């Protein structure tokens, strides 16, 4: 891989340029699909961009220096982690280069909820604390099936490279593992029916209750970048397409990512919020069950 192709991958696709464009378009698509499901018209496509600019231009309230620093550093770290996840997705790996290391990707993905939980507690708001505690409990529940499903794929592939993890395991491992990963997407993105963590109106704005102006803009950006990163990771794992040409891979990657957004938005619009304990039970029963099937299939080598 030459320097120029590495830069193209990091800065254009699937790096920074694609990440920002897709993130805002995905937020718009989500809001539009939910609006259409409720027989409303919904926001215009430029809405998330103007929301971001407006929040950046607001004057933040004055805070004690250390608290202000931490409340700015946490969302910045979360934005950096999700941008890193997207840039490292091996969408075009056929043309050489970074094969994608699952351990690195998962650690970057898990950094975002960690920052989110810390952010809720350092804001020293009662509702921020409740939201952060809920998110921490949910992290423990959904990460069990999420990580076991990834372990199953890794055992089936015999390595941590995403290219081999995506294409080597047998269908008996891949189908339940991908299903378990798909089940964890809505809770990772704080969508109904698993939206207990930032339950809007119920606990005000959850962990983000105290975040204002530019800091809130960074959190909103993190949230939509997570959309791109997580739907992208699932797409890369589900459709490895060995031997396909680069434009085909890129187009399929974009198409499947946006289809996943539509699917998640429809589920979100059609369901109501569950309680934290119900969500934890769901993931420890059904999510874990599906993930363990994949793990057993990988261990006995079906």
């Amino acid at each position, binding site marked *: 891989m030459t320097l120029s192709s590495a830069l193209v991958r990091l800065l254009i696709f699937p790096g920074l340029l694609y990440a920002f464009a897709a993130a805002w378009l995905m937020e718009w698509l989500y809001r539009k699909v939910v609006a259409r499901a409720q027989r409303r018209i919904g926001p215009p496509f430029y809405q998330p961009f*103007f*929301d971001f600019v407006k929040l950046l231009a607001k004057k933040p309230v004055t805070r004690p220096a250390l608290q202000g620093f931490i409340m700015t550093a946490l969302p910045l770290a979360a934005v950096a982690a999700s941008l890193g996840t997207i840039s490292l997705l091996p969408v075009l790996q056929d043309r050489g280069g970074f094969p994608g290391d699952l351990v690195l990707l998962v650690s970057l993905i898990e950094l975002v909820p960690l920052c989110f939980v810390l952010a809720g507690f350092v804001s020293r708001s009662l509702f921020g604390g409740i939201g952060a505690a809920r998110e921490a409990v949910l992290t423990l529940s959904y990460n069990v099936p999420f990580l076991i499903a990834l372990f199953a794929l890794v055992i089936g592939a015999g390595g941590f490279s995403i290219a081999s993890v995506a294409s080597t395991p047998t269908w008996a491992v891949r189908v339940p593992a991908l299903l378990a990963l798909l089940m964890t997407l809505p809770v990772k993105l704080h969508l109904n029916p698993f939206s207990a963590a930032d339950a809007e109106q119920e606990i*005000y704005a959850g962990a983000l*209750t105290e975040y204002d102006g530019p800091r809130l803009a960074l959190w909103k950006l993190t949230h939509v970048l997570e959309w791109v990163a997580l739907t992208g990771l699932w797409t890369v794992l589900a459709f490895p397409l060995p031997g396909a040409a680069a434009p085909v891979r890129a187009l399929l990657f974009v198409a499947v990512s946006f289809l996943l957004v539509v699917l998640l938005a429809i589920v979100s619009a059609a369901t109501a919020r569950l309680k934290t304990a119900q969500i934890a039970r769901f993931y420890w029963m059904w999510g874990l069950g599906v993930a363990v099937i994949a793990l057993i299939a990988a261990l006995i080598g079906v």
Partner: protein
Amino acid sequence: MSLIDTLVRTARRRSPWLYHLNAGSCNGCDIELVACLTPRYDVEQLGIRLESSPRHADIVVISGPVTRTTCEALQTVYAQVPDPKVVVALGSCPASGNVFAGSPTIVGPLERVIPVDVYVPGCPPRPDAMIAGIAEAVAILAGDKPRPVPTDVPVVPDATETGVRS
């Protein structure tokens, strides 16, 4: 006017987020405001969202005649909203006290407690009138329209000190 300035003003016009505060309202104005979010009016087309935290808001929408118990909360919440911010008084109660005028349990009108930029009269006002009022608030927010000159109504300086909080 620089490019960034134009961009910021356009963004403020396109994305006003509301925070709604009930200062002793009878719930009439409140349900009419919620009606703005329904399919019939669908203010999300205009980028308007009802936010759940005052820290996220640009426009504070206040209904009710401002009772003694809500006076302190109003001042606290108003101070929590980051600048630039605009206050919309919803209905006749915050403007004049309406049928509660002269009651010992109210502190209103609202401009005694916090500065008010836009009044939407009515008991309750129609959702159309509320959207028109919010549009006026957006124009003030984006700098297209000047803020109204404050009136010389005697102001309650701090609710806790003056003892208006019962």
